[in-house]
């Protein structure tokens, strides 16, 4: 985690900041969701409190905190309180493993009569070598939160909602895991940062053993895995339990699914978990298929040189580079988050048998086909044909 006290504390603060970023994005996303749905349905949405209704977020937060604490009499108290906390964990731990920007190089400097340094700070909570497998493993634990909530509430709607939710999550985890195999075949690495660094510059690939470059397209994964990208996007919609896959909380049949008995801040924690998963899913999409934090055709070194040329020191230039690339990453993520909102208010809900059929009988075979085709193409293109 670090070698001296300064590095350790900065790394810890960074992790906390990324987690708080995730938590803070939730009210913002709720606002986008409400305004966006209003836009789509030709309404106004929340517009009274503050400019554009933005202070509605604050009002909502206060409202959540001042709701009455309610526990059903026959529920299992400990698990009832545990479930929302468990819902927070997987999204937070997974989101911290994804690189949000270029690492920051800090030169050695004098402070408080001590020489600190040189440091390299990663713009992510922690770099884990097996990135994808770690994120997959951690986010598969999210099913526990739903099951615990459903069972602890001692409510029929909650239990059925939880069972539906977990059955749906595990069904689509197959398509999700299988579409990632295609990505692995292309990049040959588990690590997110290596994947991102392979997507710099113009589109270039091996064509029957010869290096081919297309100068007007960026070197993004989407051009290697178009089918995989579509499958992954559909699978993460189901993983995050959002429309058109929100069967677990289909309000017409199940009231509110597994959080029927939850209210106030505990309900809000489930929302943080759900929106956190949306963030993780968008970040994964961007990292796999859209070049991560890189700006197309511009390498981080060029940005760094640009800032150094303007008279900034090496540390400052590195910091500014990281911030610019972080903005690029967030611009890409914002597109996907908007897609999540857009789809939710456009498509109708599936029926449960249609949902399972789609997962098992349509997406799984297509993901398999994607894997096989990718393997054949990679084998043909990269073998030496001399």
């Amino acid at each position, binding site marked *: 985690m670090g070698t001296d006290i300064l590095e350790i504390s900065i790394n810890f603060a960074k992790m906390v900041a990324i987690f708080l970023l995730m938590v803070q994005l939730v009210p913002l996303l709720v606002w986008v969701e409400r305004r966006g749905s209003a836009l789509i349905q030709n309404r106004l949405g929340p517009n009274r409190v503050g400019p554009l209704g933005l202070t509605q977020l604050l009002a909502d937060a206060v409202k959540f905190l001042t709701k009455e604490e309610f526990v059903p009499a026959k529920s299992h108290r400990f698990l009832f309180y545990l479930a929302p906390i468990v819902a927070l964990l997987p999204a937070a731990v997974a989101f911290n493993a994804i690189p949000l920007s270029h690492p920051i190089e800090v030169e050695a400097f004098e402070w408080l009569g001590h020489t600190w340094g040189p440091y390299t700070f990663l713009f992510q909570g922690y770099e884990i070598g*097996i990135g994808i497998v770690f994120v997959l*493993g951690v986010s598969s634990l999210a099913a526990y939160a739903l099951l*615990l909530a459903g069972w602890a509430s001692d409510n029929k709607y909650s239990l059925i909602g*939880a069972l539906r939710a*977990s059955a749906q999550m*595990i069904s689509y985890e197959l398509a999700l895991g299988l579409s990632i195999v295609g990505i692995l075949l292309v990049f040959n690495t588990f690590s997110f940062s290596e994947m991102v660094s392979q997507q710099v510059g113009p589109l270039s690939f091996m064509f029957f053993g010869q290096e081919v470059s297309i100068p007007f397209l960026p070197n993004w994964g989407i051009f290697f895995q178009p089918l995989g990208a579509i499958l992954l996007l559909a699978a993460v919609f189901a993983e995050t339990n959002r429309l058109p896959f929100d069967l677990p909380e289909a309000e017409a049949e199940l009231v509110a699914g597994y959080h029927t008995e939850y209210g106030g801040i505990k309900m809000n924690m489930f929302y943080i978990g759900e929106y956190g998963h949306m963030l993780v899913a968008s970040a994964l999409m961007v990292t796999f298929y859209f070049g991560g934090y890189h700006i197309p055709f511009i390498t981080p070194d060029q940005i760094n040189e640009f800032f150094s040329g303007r008279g900034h020191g090496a540390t400052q230039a590195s910091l500014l580079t990281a911030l610019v690339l972080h903005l690029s990453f967030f611009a890409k993520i914002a597109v996907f988050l908007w897609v999540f909102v857009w789809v939710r208010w456009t498509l109708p809900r599936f029926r449960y048998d249609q949902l399972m059929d789609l997962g098992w009988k349509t997406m799984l075979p297509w993901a398999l086909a994607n894997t096989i085709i990718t393997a054949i193409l990679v084998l043909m293109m990269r073998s030496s044909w001399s």
Partner: protein
Amino acid sequence: MEMSSILFYLLAAATLFFGFRTITVANPIFSALNLALTMITLAGIFFMLDAYFIAGVQLAVYAGAVMVLFVMVLMLFDLSGEARAFSRGMMSGILKVGGVSLFGIIVIATIMGSFSNILVIDSGEAAAGQALVQPTTRDLAVVLFSRYLLAFELLGLLLLVVAVGVVAVSRIKGGTHARD
């Protein structure tokens, strides 16, 4: 104490605690949840041992799939009659005494072994073990797909057979998916 020792004792204590709870808690759902926690802490220990991929698989398959299945199945059952965790009777009593005494023997043997030199590898070799280059996931893949290829294909076959068997079991007369 070093960081790695603290981590190890922390994770080991958590593993043993959750493992103990798994077999002593009366409600089977709590057993399953405790076992899931055991799996997660074990994944942490695998992580400490540089078996990163195995740790990830432990999380994704054991904690994220197998234990979810256990919890789901237990939630489907009516467990109100399951208040007593342990059965009574002559045979059960013998098993209980036997099980606990066997466990006692294991505990005593490990404690004695850790004080004697039976278990301890000689220190030069242990130090050499630290200096060795740890295998990566790529090495795992190379060994798996060259030397153990046949075993790997057979596992694929085993999984197919199990999938067919599970469907067959659920289809037997009076089974859960019987076609009436």
